[in-house]
């Protein structure tokens, strides 16, 4: 990839650097390569959309970048930390620097919207000295759910749940947000609202977004679109 410079306030640095990354599933005779020689650089503040057909390896690449899966071959650096061959502890620690938004919202069903957002803040000791309640409520207000802070996920609509998930992902100001099909289960308007919200908050916080989607309606928010097919970036 060519290094394209962007006009943003903070100095442009590379937050994700992938080079010659290969990944395999299965063992022995069943071993199957799913990622082939991936090379990719993402700068801070960039919004990158990754698209491609089902089964092309997008989600696998995303889960490797998020430290949810151990990288096997090649080099993968997240925030200047080599992930390939990293220990479980390093991976767990690294995950705290990343915000995740999933296709299914994956909120804790037994916690209120506010408590779900708080769960993300509680991972960072520096926030515990501050009023995390106020912080969580402020974040929910930013996503337009100021009147729903004490609702359980079961009494929120799909779009509202996804907005709680965004609040949870962004409240602790992560450097990177990884989103997998965040609009897949939403109608056109809610989907649009959700990505615009992500875009707005990300620009405010200067964080990088990598978004995997099939949804052609939201491609316009991207600074850059990358296409994956059969485990290779095109």
């Amino acid at each position, binding site marked *: 990839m060519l290094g394209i410079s962007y006009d943003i306030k903070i100095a442009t640095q590379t937050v994700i650097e992938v080079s010659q990354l290969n990944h395999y599933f299965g063992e022995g005779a069943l071993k199957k390569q799913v990622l082939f020689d991936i090379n990719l650089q993402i700068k801070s503040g960039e919004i990158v959309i990754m698209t491609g057909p089902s089964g092309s390896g997008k989600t696998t690449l995303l889960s490797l970048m*998020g430290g949810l*899966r151990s990288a096997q071959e090649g080099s993968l650096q997240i925030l200047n930390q080599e992930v390939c061959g990293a220990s479980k502890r390093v991976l767990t620690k*690294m995950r705290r620097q990343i915000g995740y938004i999933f296709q299914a919202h994956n909120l804790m069903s037994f916690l209120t919207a506010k*408590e779900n957002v708080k769960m993300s803040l509680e*991972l960072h000791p520096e926030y515990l000295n501050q009023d995390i309640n106020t912080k969580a409520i402020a974040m929910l207000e930013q996503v337009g759910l100021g009147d729903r802070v004490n609702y359980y996920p079961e009494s929120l609509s799909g779009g509202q749940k996804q907005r709680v998930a965004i609040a949870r992902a962004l409240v602790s100001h992560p450097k990177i947000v990884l989103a997998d099909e965040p609009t897949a289960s939403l109608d056109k308007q809610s989907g649009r609202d959700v990505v615009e919200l992500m875009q707005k908050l990300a620009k405010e916080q200067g964080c990088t977004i990598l978004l995997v989607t099939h949804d052609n309606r939201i491609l316009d928010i991207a600074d850059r679109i990358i296409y994956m097919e059969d485990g290779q970036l095109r």
Partner: protein
Amino acid sequence: MISKLFLKTPLAWRQLMKERTRLAVAVAGITFADMLIFIQMGFESALFDAAIQPHRKLLGDLVLINPQFNSLFSTKSFSRDKLYQALSYEGVASVNSIYIGTAQWRNPQTRIDRPILVWGVDPYQPGLRFPEVEKNKDTLKSLNHIMFDQAGRPEYGEVGKIFQKTGNFQTELNNNLVSVRGLFSNGASFAADGNVVASDSTFLRLFPQRKSDQIEVGLINLKPGTDIQKLKAQLKIGLNPDPNSPFVEVGTTEDFAQKEKNYWATSTGIGFIFGLGVAVGFIVGIVIVYQILYSDVSDHLAEYATLKAMGYTDWYLLGVLIQESLFLAILGYLPSLFLSLGLYQLTFIATMLPITMKAERAINVLILTVIMCSISGAIALGKLRSADPADIY
């Protein structure tokens, strides 16, 4: 540090509280298991307490018995000379003796004989710590006048009721006509369904084959300030010239009581039966708590995986599971404690067994409950480990 802990969301508590029905079922299950344990332990201890109740009523600092005397169920006698020999020891104030034997008591209404334990005592100094016996000891001085244990089994007849109405109750004891002239309360035990106190002279008439110088229990009272343990050791050596075939065993009344208790606990099936009951309650508890924790973890597997993806460690989730099981343990234990108190009372009314809640037992069952829930938590942990953050994208 602690205040920071309170700021955190109590995940385990919130998870339990969200599903009230499941929580209620879990708590009911643990309560049931705990009550099972409480009842088994309560019965066992009550039966043992009943068995040793008479021993604890003996008035004496030290007791002499035949070394083969293991239980009131089969008494053994020894020569009274040994007791008199003890009188010569420094520190011994007085001695007293008691005969014990099992006689046939005839219920005058049904005319059915039933074994009953007879205590032959000195009517001037009964040596038994029953206030009613001490108060009415003079009535024992007349031959064939006895006192009856009104807390014994009802099969002996309506002795207490008739005595209180008429002031007398006549029946046959070992085919001798006796009349009840007083009542006291001890209660039934393994060894005896009931008790009778008689004077030594009456006792020897009821048991004509018995020799007056062969006694079952020798009581030794010490002068104030005497070292009981030291004298016990001296007597043990002094009264038994040949330690390999001792004539008498020396001990405190509590030693004597524990010997009886050991007899029932170890050389009968009783200890095993109740131990098995406790074990069953314990296992039932583990299964119930495990079922609850397992379904809780299964239902929330995606959420646990999300927490791992966010950067929560395995240890954190393990902590949540342990907290959950501890909450369950305490929530299930408390009602069982109160319900057991009620059940003990019911049992006491129905059986006259001295069944009470002891602090030691309450603590033991609490500890057992915590262990029970921890084991369940440890088994449910396997399921928790299967929460893989890579699966949720």
